[in-house]
């Protein structure tokens, strides 16, 4: 199983060296991988049907509890088959659709990567492993959306999609870690056993919030839905595969998967119903105003995703079964419609439905595929869509109390709109009169129309004979969500009941709507007037504000003035100091055991202070230099008084050299200008004094602390006996702590070399780096 999951990954890497051979006729071979995998997963059907699960374990990062744990149950199987099945068709379709494209190999590479990631998502038992694959799907989607990377809109859409899905991913990650942390491990199967603890934990709400954000962003729920229409910039096979059939369902899958762990509470239910409900109505409504084929399909996809969230939110056995069926229903008809749209786009060069009509005359098999898919989406009897819709209404009608009416009403409304949208996309281009300019169109390669046709036909086949799949796919899938046996075979005919009535209403009203409402640029423009209320616009606006704030913040903070930076550092230090002093105990001041004061020391100190005063206030550079050297010489005297002859010597010679240096450098410079105004100077003075005070306070505290003389005692005792020197300071410098000195002269050497290079090196203009 590991191989199965990683096969796509491996193959996509193989594309790097081998890709160029696959660009030509051999492209069809690429489909061998999904077909093989489909067969592989199909081979598990009996096992799953028998109620068994398959588990695989391989250690990876055991210290994080992240291992390659794969778990195959009904839900995983449904998705795996969906991924590999539709994947096979999309791969085949692509071979023809992008025939001869110079990046075809890359395209397949991304697709393989995506497929592997998606399989990883649905098979992982470990939530973090799931998350890893989850993010990989976003990345492959990013590359696929931006596949036409010379198109600015493509690039923009891919970034938006990536940011939203991965941004949500970060929240999901925290949520999953929180779950794992609380339940003690990251295995979903294990978590199910601790689900009661999780649900009763104080952080349950936070977990839900984080997981929902992750799922909603991925599955394009309101208000994060807007990345999906943008994602339609991707080549059509991608739209069909990722953005309707599989990837966007990852969020649905996650909710379904976590339903037994986190579900069953009001906190779980209502947000899902509300968000799913809003999403489905909002985008179904939007879909019928679009004129671009893929746009219509995108909005109707969002609506379908909303519907799925909505169903999972309801959380009853019926609704979960409905969800699992609707996943496949939608995948079949929507993929088919997308692929059809792709053919139309490919052949006519436009996707504008106001310009498309009568294409059945030139693209007969395609029109069959489109119409069948549209009918399935409409839920006409004997299509798979009919069964799906029945189950939906069944599910909404089985809810309790006031909810029943509201939920059913919403479902009906959505379905009516979706029906209309489906007709717009699947029927309208083929009916009516063929415009003259489309007369020259020929039926394309068989792969192009074969794939949608097969999907559409499957929709009819399953619609007529649901027993083919119900027991092997949907019941196990729903059981995995519901965590108890569900055995309700799908029926084509339920008899005359409310559900049928609702289906009828849906059909009639929807068809009427389709007939009455003609899509036009004008109506699109009309609805776009309200764009400023749309989440896309609002979030975009927020992003612009964020950018403005960033510019302001960064510009204010990092304003180019070194002195301001330094001021901030000093103020920070002083503030921290003040805070800590405020928190901490009193400052102890004791003046015992201090040495007596003699006049000459005080005089030297006084001169020092006065010299500091001069350096700070003088307006002539030379005066400053003179005062600085006085300062150094006085320090030198202090060193003499306090028994540091070596220090005094060094201080003195270095100070003199510094003077020489200053003198060599300064003599051309103009005098100081007093730039700062009085207020600035006072402010700086206050800050500087505070800093000095702070140092003084610490110093006083330290002086109260008795010092441990163990080390200096050791030096004194051993300087002569062991290190053969009498000048202990020098012995320290060349022996006890000789390494310091070694690197101190390195510093000096570096400085000297630096001076040479700084003054002598003149780069040529051609020498850039």
């Amino acid at each position: 199983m590991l191989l199965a999951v990683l096969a796509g990954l491996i193959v996509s890497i193989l594309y790097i060296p081998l890709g160029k051979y696959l660009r030509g006729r051999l492209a069809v071979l690429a489909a061998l991988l999904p077909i093989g995998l489909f067969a592989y997963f199909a081979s598990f059907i009996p096992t799953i049907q028998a109620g068994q699960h398959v588990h695989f374990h391989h250690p990876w990062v055991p210290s994080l509890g992240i291992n390659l744990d794969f778990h195959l149950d009904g839900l995983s199987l449904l998705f795996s088959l969906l991924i590999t099945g539709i994947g096979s068709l999309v791969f085949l379709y692509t071979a023809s659709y992008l025939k001869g494209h110079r990046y075809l190999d890359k395209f397949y590479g991304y697709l393989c990567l995506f497929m592997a990631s998606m399989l990883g998502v649905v098979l992982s038992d470990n939530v973090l492993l799931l998350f890893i694959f989850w993010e990989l799907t976003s990345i492959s989607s990013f590359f696929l959306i931006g596949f036409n990377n010379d198109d600015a809109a493509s690039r923009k859409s891919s970034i938006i999609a990536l940011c939203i899905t991965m941004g949500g991913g970060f929240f999901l990650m925290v949520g999953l870690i929180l779950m794992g942390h609380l339940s003690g491990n990251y295995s979903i199967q294990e978590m199910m056993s601790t689900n009661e603890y999780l649900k009763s934990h104080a952080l349950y709400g936070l977990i839900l919030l984080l997981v929902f954000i992750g799922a909603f962003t991925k599955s394009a729920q309101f208000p994060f839905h807007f990345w999906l229409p943008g994602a339609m910039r991707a080549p059509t096979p991608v739209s069909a595969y990722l953005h309707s059939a599989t990837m966007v369902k990852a969020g649905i899958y996650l909710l379904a998967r976590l339903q037994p762990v986190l579900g069953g509470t009001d906190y779980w239910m209502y947000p899902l119903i509300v968000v799913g409900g809003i999403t489905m109505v909002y985008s179904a409504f939007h879909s019928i105003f679009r004129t671009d084929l893929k746009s219509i399909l995108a909005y109707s996809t969002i609506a379908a995703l909303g519907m799925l969230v909505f169903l999972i939110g309801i959380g009853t056995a019926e609704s979960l079964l409905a969800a699992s069926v609707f996943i496949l229903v939608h995948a079949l008809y929507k993929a088919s419609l997308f692929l059809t749209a792709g053919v139309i786009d490919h052949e006519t060069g436009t996707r504008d439905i106001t310009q498309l009509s009568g294409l059945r005359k030139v693209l007969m098999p395609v029109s069959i595929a489109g119409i069948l898919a549209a009918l399935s989406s409409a839920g006409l009897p004997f299509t798979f869509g009919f069964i799906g819709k029945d189950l939906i209404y069944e599910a909404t009608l089985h809810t309790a109390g006031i909810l029943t009416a509201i939920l059913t009403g919403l479902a009906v409304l959505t379905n009516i709109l979706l029906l209309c949208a489906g007709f717009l996309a699947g029927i309208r281009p083929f009916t009516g009169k063929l415009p003259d300019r489309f007369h020259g169109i020929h039926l394309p390669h068989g792969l192009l129309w074969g794939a949608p046709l097969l999907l559409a036909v499957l929709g009819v086949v399953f619609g007529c004979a649901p027993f083919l799949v119900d027991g092997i796919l949907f019941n196990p899938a729903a059981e995995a969500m519901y965590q108890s046996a569900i055995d309700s075979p799908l029926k084509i005919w339920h008899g005359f009941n409310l559900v049928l009535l609702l289906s009828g209403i849906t059909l009639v009203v929807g068809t009427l709507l389709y007939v009455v409402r003609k899509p036009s640029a004008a109506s699109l423009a009309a609805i776009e007037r309200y764009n400023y209320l749309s989440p896309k616009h609002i979030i975009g606006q927020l992003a612009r504000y964020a950018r403005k704030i960033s510019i302001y913040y960064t510009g204010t903070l990092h304003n180019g003035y070194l002195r301001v930076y330094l001021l901030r550092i000093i103020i920070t230090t002083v503030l921290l100091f003040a805070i800590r002093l405020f928190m901490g105990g009193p400052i102890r001041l004791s003046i015992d055991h201090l040495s007596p004061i003699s006049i000459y020391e005080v005089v030297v100190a006084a001169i020092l202070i006065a010299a500091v005063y001069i350096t700070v206030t003088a307006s002539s550079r030379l005066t400053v230099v003179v005062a600085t050297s006085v300062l150094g010489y006085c320090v030198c005297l202090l060193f003499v008084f306090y028994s540091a002859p070596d220090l005094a010597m060094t201080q003195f010679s270095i100070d003199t050299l510094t003077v020489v240096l200053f003198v060599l450098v300064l003599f051309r410079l103009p005098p100081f200008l007093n730039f700062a105004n009085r207020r600035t100077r006072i402010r700086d003075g206050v800050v500087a004094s505070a800093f000095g005070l702070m140092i003084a306070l610490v110093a006083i505290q330290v002086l109260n602390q008795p010092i441990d003389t163990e080390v200096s005692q050791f030096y004194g005792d051993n300087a002569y006996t062991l290190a053969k020197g009498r000048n202990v300071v020098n012995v320290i410098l060349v022996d006890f702590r000789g390494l310091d000195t070694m690197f101190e002269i390195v510093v000096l050497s570096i400085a000297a070399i630096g001076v040479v290079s700084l003054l002598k090196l003149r780069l040529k203009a051609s020498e850039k780096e």
Partner: protein
Amino acid sequence: MTLDSYIDYVILPILAIALLLVFVRLFKGPTIVDRVIALDLLITIGISVITAYSISRGKSTFIDVAMILALIAFLSTIAFSYYIEKRGRK
């Protein structure tokens, strides 16, 4: 009164006062050359202070410091002259 304490209580204070006076000149200027000679004088007094201190403490080690001062102090005066003259010429 021993020599040590004589130096400590009489000589060093006198020298300290001298230091102060010179520093006042350094502070007042008015020209840069005044400051330079004040600095030079400060160092010479410094040499005396160190020598006196060395006697008063009985530690000949400090004479080494005085030696360094004598050897080097000269350089800073030269540097200042060099600088001031060069600047005056430009």
